[in-house]
């Protein structure tokens, strides 16, 4: 187990970061090039202000029109993303690692906050999972992979939680936690989770296209939020 631990926190971790950031960068660069050739419409009407408005509103809780119409889902959705991104980055234990590996660290969350955050996240995952199963318009779109991805997203948090509270064998949970996290990070650039990056691009397009492109000669752009 110790050997596995050393591997996962050594070469595997580096590889994960390289694949995660490298994958996103490569995908971004590829799409960038492609867009110059096949998405002239994007560049013709790109507008930073309308792009930003289109992005920014959807980052706020209930900032998007759909979330205002479905406020409970809107809240779950927001908290899910907040915890998903916030906890791993600002967790105290992780920042000790950042310090060790990269020589820098970020401000950290108090442990009890992170602890509760995990429970909030898991509650959100349960809600999103149930929603996927129950609502016909979501179920019809969902593939097995969609359910699996949701569970994969939750896995690092479950295992991390168990490890932190030392239920059962600490090292086992820790190893599982690192493994799940690395798998998840490797999947991101190559799956719909790539929206981590592409969200900004697609929102910039629709914001500029429906906003800036119409917002001229005294006419008004349409708000896409």
């Amino acid at each position: 187990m110790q050997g596995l631990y050393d591997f996962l926190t050594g070469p595997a971790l580096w590889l994960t970061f390289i694949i995660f950031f490298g994958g996103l960068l490569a995908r971004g660069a590829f799409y960038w090039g492609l867009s110059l050739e096949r998405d002239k419409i994007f560049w013709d009407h790109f507008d930073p202000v309308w792009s930003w408005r289109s992005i920014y509103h959807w980052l706020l809780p209930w900032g998007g029109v759909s979330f205002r119409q479905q406020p409970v889902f809107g809240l779950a959705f927001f908290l899910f993303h907040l915890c998903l991104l916030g906890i791993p980055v600002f967790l105290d234990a992780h920042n000790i690692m950042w310090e060790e590996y990269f020589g820098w660290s970020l401000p950290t969350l108090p442990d009890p906050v992170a602890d509760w955050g995990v429970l909030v996240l898991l509650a959100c995952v349960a809600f999103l999972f149930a929603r996927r199963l129950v609502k016909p318009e979501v179920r019809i779109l969902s593939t097995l992979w969609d359910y699996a991805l949701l569970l994969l997203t939750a896995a690092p948090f479950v295992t991390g939680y168990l490890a932190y509270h030392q239920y059962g064998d600490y090292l086992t949970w820790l190893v599982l936690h690192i493994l799940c996290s690395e798998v998840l990070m490797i999947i991101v650039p190559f799956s719909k989770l790539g929206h981590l990056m592409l969200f900004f691009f697609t929102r910039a397009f629709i914001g500029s296209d429906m906003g800036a492109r119409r917002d001229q000669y005294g006419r008004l752009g349409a708000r896409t939020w």
Partner: protein
Amino acid sequence: MTEPAEEIQAQETPEQDDRPVDLKKIQSILSSNSGARMRSWLDICARCGLCADSCFFYLANDKDPKLSPAYKVKSTVGEMYKRKGRVDRKFLREAYEVLWGQCTMCRRCSMFCPFGIDMAAMIGVGRAVCTSQGILPAGLAKAVENIRETGNQMAVSQEDWLETCEWMAEEYGEEIAGLTIPVDKKGVKYMFTVNPREPAFYPQDVGMMAQILHVAEESWTVPSTGWDSTNLAMFAANKEMAAYPVKLMYDKALELGVEQILVTECGHAYRSAAFEGPYFLGLPGGKPPLPVKHSVQLFWEYIVRDGRIKIDPEKKVTVPVTVQDPCNQSRSAGLSQMLRELSQALCADFRDMNPNREFNHCCGGGGGFIPMGAEFKKRRMISGKIKAEQIKATGAKIIIVPCHNCFDQITDLNKEYELGLKVVSFKELICESMIIPEKFIPKEEDEEPASQPGDDGGEE
């Protein structure tokens, strides 16, 4: 006054048609559209279903999950990409039902999707694939044929167009002294373009427009060619033919040296002339070669902004009035505020629908639905339920509809749902209530002459 396309018979039954598809062509369409946007849209759709509630097809059909935008896209265009274009005619026939029969490309869903996925653009690619294999609604196929042969979707001859203008100048000149409809006058401000329905069925629209332009003492002309700004080839997703009428129009405007192209009260005509046309023609920057203005904006400038046309307060409409937000004006062209200010200037009791402006619901007549004819009428009436309910809730007795397709749809909904409405255009209301300045009031003795020499533009 029947819409001619209604008479076109539904397509033969190509279910039996098992000719192989042209795989190369399909793949080339898919590939040329497979840019960063398309790839992102296909990849990142979170399958969250949030777009469902935004679509009136879904809402009007008991929330059938198969009618949610994401499902419609996934089961058609999504499948085409997934199968790398290897689809058969049976698949395309099924896709056809969805691509034309379940989506008007109104773009409302894009505003409700957290990623802003442009479902309508994707549906457009699906339509292009089907069209490339000859699978498209008969009404649109006919319109495309007409465009090919005559440059306009209803095959109105140039002679008929010019005669309509002449006739209307005469008829509407009886009420406004000195009224003319100049043809091909060079160097004027506006080149006025219409929907072929006007010369074909609603010539009075041309007459009323001439009255308004004349009273505003505008510098304008109609062109002898390139006068059709509509574009049904756009809804057939036949890019090559969609480029043709746009080219005729732009070329004519440049030849005449006008400042702007003016588009009649029609939504998709404006979409084509001002926004999509440049892409059909591959113009750099995606901009038309000269500004394109919608009539609603012109009316707004005349009445609200500049006071060039005055409304007689005595003649203002007093019964409750609402206004239809055509998708191609309010959502995709930024005219929503002008629509309202103009309505309020003409009506004492203006009532908004809800939702409205860029969040309006499509009436159900967009995306080519009206000219798609009888085959699609039933679903058009069913999906129009949302609009009918919206209108009903306002309690309006009159609805202003500044778009030809919305006009037909709402006229049909009016009957179907017994809304008891009067459906009017802006020009109709303006002509009924504008103050005609003294100098334009015909004097008893010169009642006869319709046009006066000198004011007539025919410089060519």
